[in-house]
């Protein structure tokens, strides 16, 4: 039971995917202008990450390892994720138009979100079992959502006029992210999780 607790707290706070592991920085900087869009992106990431964790685990365990093709991991995983994102998009479009209109625009972007491939590769590296992989996927997504929504909240309050011209846009966002990351570094060592 203890290991599950470590995975949950670890991937949300201590080893936050964005702020301490630098995974998924592109959407973190790109889609964090408004809190609403950040939240939409966050939910889409949680959704895809949790499903991708299960599928990549199963394919790795029952296809790649069985056939001795571990070196094909990168190629296989990126294809699984791309296919998964595409099929999730089709399914949501068909069965839940309201969810589609909320998440639709973010879904294609997720294929090239390195956090999704990152979580799949880290699950294998840490030798998690199916349930642990799934939990890691879900809560890494929750950690991503937390970080991107917090940054969006900060960005909404930055008045562009008061920012020096050369700092406007990405540089000031990166500085804000640095301060956010400093705050999150205080979580390191919480419950003895490094």
């Amino acid at each position: 039971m203890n290991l599950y607790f470590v995975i949950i707290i670890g991937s949300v706070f201590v080893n936050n995917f964005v702020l301490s592991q630098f995974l998924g920085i592109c959407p973190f900087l790109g889609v964090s202008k408004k809190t609403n869009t950040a939240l939409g992106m966050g939910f889409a990431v949680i959704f895809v990450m949790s499903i991708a964790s299960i599928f990549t685990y199963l394919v790795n365990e029952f296809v790649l390892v069985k056939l001795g093709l571990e070196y094909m991991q990168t190629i296989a995983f990126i294809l699984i994720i791309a296919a998964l994102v595409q099929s999730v998009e089709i399914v949501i479009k068909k069965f839940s138009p309201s969810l589609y209109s909320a998440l639709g625009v973010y879904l294609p972007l997720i294929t090239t979100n390195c956090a999704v491939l990152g979580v799949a590769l880290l699950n294998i590296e840490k030798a998690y079992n199916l349930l642990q992989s799934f939990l890691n996927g879900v809560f890494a997504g929750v950690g991503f959502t937390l970080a991107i929504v917090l940054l969006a909240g900060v960005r909404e309050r930055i008045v562009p006029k008061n920012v020096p011209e050369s700092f406007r846009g990405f540089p000031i966002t990166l500085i804000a992210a640095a301060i956010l990351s400093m705050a999150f570094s205080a979580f390191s060592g919480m419950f003895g999780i490094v």
Partner: protein
Amino acid sequence: MNNKRLNILTNGVVKSNPTFRLVLGTCPTLAVTTQAINGLAMGAAVTFVLLCSNVMISLLKRVIPDRVRIPAFVVIIATFVTVVQMIMRRYMSSLYDALGVFLPLIVVNCIILARAEAFASCNPVLDSALDGIGMGFGFTLSLTFIGIVRELLGAGSFFGLPIGSLGNISMTVFILPAGGFLVYGTLMALVNYLTALADNRKYVHPTHKASEKEAKV
């Protein structure tokens, strides 16, 4: 014609530098630059993949159907990334460990897909190769530079060599994640400032009049 080729080559280094101007491929930029050597290695790996995938995609641009081009590009890129992974694991195992999960993550580095989509899929082979080299070189240069700054401030060394007693007064925050964001943001602002100066655009600081003098210099 030669001039045009030279432009393609230098475009990625200065005018559309992937790190500071296009802001693409930010994950490895922040993650591996705790040491200058890691930045250099990551840059070299990305350059290799970029060059190979640009050439391959340019060669195959008439064969790949338009509707499945993105998955096709991704498979081509992933193949070359696997090649790099295998070579590094065999011959540079310490760097392989240092780059960790970010080596396979070159697959989803947006620079490579962006150049495949925007350049290689609609340009001749030689131009695409030059574009790959230029962009890769620009990326390597930026990553190495960020790495040098972070290593110098955070660990007091230069490419692993300790510099005098700088190690005693080093600020560990610069090699922590927060320092990565901080250095990247500050350097990007500096690049913006220098670009504005070079463009001869009048630079007026919005709050302090003192900096107007600076701009005229």
